[in-house]
């Protein structure tokens, strides 16, 4: 049992991590009013969503979202309704794939760099720390200790 526990738990965690990545790194598909409100920019505030803002415009947009959804509009149609008026700017969660792919590309680049660092050809060990010559070296070491004290 104990022998199985580690690979089992690791497997569960890895699967969850994979799921998380897939679920998180893509444009929203949410369709309920609250989520839509959280993904639309409040037009007359800085950096707040319609869902968070107390302004009248935000209240009106929330009302329009409800009305549009009640009329049977899909989430994408609701987004498009506001994009037609304000442009893509109104969306807090972009529709264009670039902002979603870029982080994955950056991560891949980072992992590749890390792999290269792991697999780098070992260089011949350098002579032990040629920091300064002669008695200067011992002084430097003494100073380092003084600094750390």
């Amino acid at each position, binding site marked *: 049992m104990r022998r199985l526990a580690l690979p089992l738990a690791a497997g569960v965690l890895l699967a*969850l991590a994979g799921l998380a990545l897939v679920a998180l790194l893509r444009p929203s598909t949410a369709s309920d009013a609250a989520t839509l409100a959280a993904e639309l*920019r409040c037009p007359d505030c800085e950096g707040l969503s319609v869902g968070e803002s*107390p302004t009248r415009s935000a209240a009106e947009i929330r009302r329009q979202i409800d009305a549009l959804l009640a009329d049977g509009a899909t989430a994408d149609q609701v987004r498009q309704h506001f994009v037609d008026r304000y*442009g*893509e700017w109104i969306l807090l969660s972009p529709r264009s794939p670039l*902002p979603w792919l870029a982080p994955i590309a950056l991560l891949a680049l*980072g992992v590749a760099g890390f792999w290269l660092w792991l697999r780098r050809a070992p260089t011949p060990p350098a002579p032990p*720390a040629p920091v300064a010559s002669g008695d200067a070296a011992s002084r430097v070491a003494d*100073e380092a200790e003084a600094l*750390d004290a």
Partner: protein
Amino acid sequence: MLPDLGHVAIVIGLAASVYAALAFAIGARRRDAVVVHSARRAVLVSFVLAGIAATIMVISLLTHDFSVLYVARNNATTTPPFFSVISLWAALEGSILFWTLLAVGWATLVLYRYRGMHPQLMSWVGATLAAINVFLFSVMTWPGNPFTRVTPIATEGPGPNALLQNHPFMGLHPPLLYLGYTGLAIPFAFGIAALITRRTDDAWLSIVRRWTIVPWIFLTAGIVAGAWWSYEVLGWGGYWAWDPVENAALLPWLTATAFIHSSMVAERRGGLRTWSVALVISTFVLTIFGTFLTRSGVVASVHSFTQSAIGPWYLAGILIALGASSALLVARLPDLRDRDTPTAVVSRESAFLFNNVLFLVITAVVILGTLLPLAVGIFGGGTIGVGAPWFNRVNVPLFVALLFLMGVGPALPWGGASLATLRDRFGPPLLVAAVAMLAAWALGMRELAPLATLGMALFSGGIMLDEVLRGTRARMRGRREAAPLAGWRLATRNRRRYGGYAVHAGILVMGIAIAVSATLSSDTSATLAPGESVTVGEYRVTYDRLVVEPLADDPRVIETRAEIRADGVAMATALRDYPNSETPIATPVVRTSLGDDLYVTLMAADPATGSVTLRVFVNPLVVWIWLGGGIVVFGAVFAIWPDRRRVGVARTAAAPAAVEPPRSLAEQESA
């Protein structure tokens, strides 16, 4: 008269900084201690002059001297003294003056602290810091003169920015943040000096580490205080919106944190010197980048300063710093050959390095999100919307991965680990985490991000707890000490390790609190007549009456206050009308407890009928974000607290013998 003296002080400060920069460089080339000594004096003089200028500005603000443009724009005769004083950093020019004071202060501190040590290295550190001071004093001499006079002299001014005078936290958050920002020039200066003198040895690394952690502590405290301020003041019930100003503070924090970790590998394994230098350089460049973003009007932001002519100056500053330091780095690349040893995939150094990868990816992602709207606007035409939902979705998996490494990294041995060690160390915590996640799922937590955060935090927390317990138990057995004493001695014998654990523990607490508060908070808006009430979660909020009256300490500010009771406790939430603000400023009431916060904002009030619209939030665990921040700061201070015993650690670290993988302290203790 006095304000003119202030500007004179700045101009002389500029002259002193120019002299210091040149004298340090010449003194370093000629190895002339007398010249270097005079340069150090000049930095001290420029610090005194910056102090004089800042004092004069504070006096001008306190005496409401409206002949100074800055005072005329940011003060009123009715402004309370406390807010007059902190108006020093409430707007653009004053904030640069304050920034300069702190930057020159740090430079003076470091140059005097290491007086007489490492003469070559310190001269170039001095030259770099003085060059930065030249930049700051030039900005104040030309485009951003804080002492610009104005005629005719007004008899009254608009007062400070309403948002900034609404909460005493404005007295705490900017100074902390600025102390962090300005302090990060120190590791940069050491980086540049190391490149010039071709010296990236262990003594150098040890100083740079220490002087990165000191400003890092201030930056961390400043970021947490800023989030807290935003929560207490802005009234939308949240604390982090990925606003460019917030990102500006986060970016150097990320790279500085990456450096603190990579420097440990560099210290143990001897390699990664180039990498370390590149990280401290990026950190500094990102601090100017952040200043540029928030002070040039390039991106829209809540608390961006008014647009001004200093934008091009800061841009020039960024490009010079970036160009010069990258050129220097390229030029010295052949001299920075790392001592390399092959590395196992599962080892502490590879965990630390992968942590660096994640920190840098997050940095790049945040820069991308901040600049993408600008880039699309310029080159792509049209617009793009990038906001909090994108930042959260993209960054949460990366932060969760960091939480995982946080537990794994410090528990792995240097060099590599056997499968048995892995099973022994990570098996039980992994099981605990998996069970906890399943339990949370069963209890109704359906969202992936908080589940993953919870799981990783428990996993990492479990590993740390296990490490600490093993060490303590070993001491109790071996030295017959009582548990608390054994724990304390264990921690103080290796402050770096256990201080680091405390920092990690604080981050885990923050991580769980953020995950829970972001997903499990509930809120309702309700329009109430006097006597009516609304129920949110377990709280019942009753509205009593509306009061409209001027503020006692600033009668020009009209407060519309709803007096309410929550579970019998009287409190008030208000909207304040400042004469210089178009829209009223919310003054939410927050009733904090360890479990959750009751947070009530007044959205609208109708004085005619006495009815009000309240927004009531119940935010679970929010207080643990601030407490976690406190633990992080405590841990970092504990880690660098001067301790005689650490000399021994420094010696083993400096000796080449350290290349052989040493065991973790817990192993040593139990052996």
